[in-house]
């Protein structure tokens, strides 16, 4: 093989690889937000595709938290997820930088995929260096020994902004150590998204309201129209949340309020059998290959009749096919056989400060958290009503926005059911808090595995629940030995 030919071959390969990489990383079109600040009112204008102005909404600026300027050279490095609604990031980055300029802090914001956050925080804590402020999307109590106790900032926020949502408290406070390991500024409802015309055809124009109706209507839709439901049974986030919602609504749970393991109960077994029925009658094998994008793809393509998801899939559909978006309805958490109504939040937004952050940078991080919360109406608005506030008082406009969606829902009150979300939203670990053992059980997919094996007919519900509980007990005992889980009696 001649050298020139080898060089030529190598060059061609490099060019092709670069071309493929470039295609893969081509930036998606983002929506543009222009912000003017006359006095104490922010006027926000949302533009879609750079042309069509949908709505202009005035959002009052809350009184900022008063702080002393920080010493020169103070840095605030924020690491957070790339928000599912890109407009949020477009708003957030200059918002944080503006605060930095006003207070003498050099602010930088980095965004990564939400799945990479645990690895990034692990690496930062282990190295003792990295970002000052990290936003996690699930309760991160397993990191507690490497994080600052944020009791002071949580207490200050409660003083300034009033009562904090229970789902947030349970996702940032660990009773076993009496520590606030995080600061939860928001959460995201996980309502039902259903295709109106399909559900109308089978006699449920408002969508199903109970799990039994979901089974009945879902089976009829699959039979008549060949369109399945989409509740994941795969090792990924949406599946884990959906399976927990079913257990809670049937009266079961992984642990009780004292953090004792109580999975193996008649209620859980009933829930597992229900999932097997639901899978066999209303779904296809695709639920075993579910990914976080499957909900969105299936709904947008009109290939799923019902999903559990935040409103981000619907927002995408509004941009792609407004008429199809009109055909999407939203429902609350479904009622179980005894009237229990619970669904997890879709994600929580929880800032943590690694313990290597000290001095002025620690104070700057805490001050920014309060400033961000004080202006949370902007956060909610710029997330297109995806984010819900931990402190209701910071977004007095929320119910009005849900009654008349500023982002063009037809009918305008399509999202009003989300105003009830605070009544049925729960949290990982419900009815106990999200502790490290609950985090490991969640990440290890034990519940999804338990459900999947019964749905596939590999185990009976009784066997699967007993096996899962044995594994969960081991995990709880391990974290209990470290003093991070309750129920020590």
């Amino acid at each position, binding site marked *: *093989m001649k050298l020139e*030919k080898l060089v*030529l*071959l190598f060059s*061609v*390969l*490099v060019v*092709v*690889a670069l071309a*493929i*990489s470039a295609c*893969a990383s081509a930036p998606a079109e983002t929506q543009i937000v222009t912000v003017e600040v006359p006095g104490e009112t922010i006027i926000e204008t949302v533009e879609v595709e750079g042309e069509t102005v949908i709505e202009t909404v005035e959002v009052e600026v809350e009184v900022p938290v008063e702080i002393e300027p920080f010493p020169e050279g103070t840095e605030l490095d924020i690491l957070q997820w790339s928000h599912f609604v890109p407009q949020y990031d477009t708003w957030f980055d200059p918002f944080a930088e503006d605060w930095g300029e006003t207070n003498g802090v050099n602010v930088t914001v980095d965004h990564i995929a939400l799945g990479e956050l*645990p*690895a990034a*925080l*692990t690496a930062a*804590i*282990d190295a003792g260096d990295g970002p000052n402020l990290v936003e996690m999307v699930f309760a991160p109590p*397993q*990191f*507690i*020994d*490497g*994080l600052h106790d944020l009791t002071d900032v949580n207490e200050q926020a409660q003083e300034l902004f009033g009562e904090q949502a229970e789902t947030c408290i349970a996702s940032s406070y660990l009773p076993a150590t009496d520590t606030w390991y995080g600061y939860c500024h928001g959460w995201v409802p996980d309502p039902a998204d259903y295709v109106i015309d399909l559900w109308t055809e089978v006699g449920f124009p408002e969508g199903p309201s109970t799990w039994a109706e979901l089974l009945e209507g879902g089976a009829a839709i699959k039979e008549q129209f060949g369109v399945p439901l989409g509740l994941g*049974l*795969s*090792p*990924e986030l949406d599946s884990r949340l959906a399976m927990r919602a079913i257990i809670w609504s049937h009266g079961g749970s992984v642990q009780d309020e004292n953090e004792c393991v109580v999975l193996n109960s008649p209620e859980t077994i009933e829930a597992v059998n229900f999932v097997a029925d639901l899978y066999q009658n209303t779904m*296809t*094998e*695709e*639920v*075993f*290959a579910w*990914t976080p994008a*499957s909900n969105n*793809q*299936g709904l947008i*393509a009109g*290939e799923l009749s019902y999903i559990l998801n935040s409103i981000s899939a619907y927002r995408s559909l509004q941009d792609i096919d407004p008429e199809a978006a009109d055909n999407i309805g939203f429902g609350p958490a479904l009622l179980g056989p005894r009237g229990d109504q619970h669904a997890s939040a879709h994600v929580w937004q929880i800032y943590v400060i690694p313990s290597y952050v000290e001095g002025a940078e620690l104070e700057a991080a805490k001050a920014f958290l309060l400033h961000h919360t004080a202006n949370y109406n902007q956060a909610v608005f710029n997330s297109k009503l995806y984010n819900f506030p931990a402190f209701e008082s910071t977004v007095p406009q929320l119910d009005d926005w849900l009654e008349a969606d500023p982002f063009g829902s037809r009918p305008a009150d399509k999202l009003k059911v989300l105003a009830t979300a605070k009544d049925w939203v729960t949290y990982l670990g419900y009815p106990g808090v999200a502790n*490290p053992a609950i*985090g*490991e059980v969640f*990440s*290890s*997919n034990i519940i999804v*595995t338990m459900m*999947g*094996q019964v749905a*596939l007919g*590999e185990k009976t519900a009784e066997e699967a629940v007993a*096996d899962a509980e044995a*594994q969960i007990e*081991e*995990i709880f005992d*391990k974290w209990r*030995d*470290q003093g991070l889980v309750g129920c020590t009696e």
Partner: protein
Amino acid sequence: MQDNAAVDTSSRFSTKYIADNEKFLGWAFLLPAVLYILLLVGVPFVLAIAFSLADVTVGDTTLNFVGLQNFARIMQTPEFWQSLRNTFGFAITAQIITIILANILAVLLSSDFRGKWFALVLIMLPWSTPIALGAIGWLWLLDSKFSPIDWVLRYFSLLGGEGALLGVPKNLYYLGKAQLAQASIIMVYVWRMLPLSAVILLAGLTSIPQDLLDQAEVDGSSFWRTLFQIKLPLILPIMIIAILFSFIYTVGDMAIVFILTRGGPVYYTHVLPTWAYIKGIEGGALAEGAAIALFIFPVLLAAAILILRYSRRTEVT
């Protein structure tokens, strides 16, 4: 003047001495590689052993010795045993398929034909494409709803209709059925490793002395006899090297399984690296993650020693 001359001479002498000192040069050239291995392989390896014997978590890496508790704990879970079986099952199956296909490809490519260089470029693409990008491409190809493969099968009425050869459902759900998902992962490993193995074998084939092949032709040896009795025995050592590279790469890889299935359906496609990551990093149990990952080491070490020893024994001079 004299002093300056003496200094020059001594400097020239020492430079010459260093340049001629093979022992020194040997160490100097090896040092970067040794440092690289020590820092980026040795230190993490020792750290992994320390972690696996302690109760470290993602939030606290203080080493409190707990003996073999982590190993005992992971061995009680069915996910671990499935991961262990898959790790070696996938790797061995993929190697067998890869080496057969690589031999065929190398024999084809050793002959001259029009467009050979273009064919080579195409064949090398899977190897030159970043692994994550390649795996995402396969994720799209094997999608449950929108798989283009299914679309083609439906177009030719092989799928998605009454009497269709592959069944009535519109899709095959490659990643939603345990056996199909396992087969898909093996196929992607083969797709990834085939170019490297083929090129290594091609290099081996082209290094066979032409006079040997000419002699075989003169003696009337058929294509198959030449292949099995001359070419393959001669390239056996290099074939073993190709298998070694490919096996070690496959056993240590986590990207393909993580991107395609994340271990599902249920946990039937987990391999040790994905299970270690999910348990150790996502679950926060760093010690157990380290213990799971360490199970790869002794088998890889044994495989490497065995294969290298065999390769040396079969070397043809």
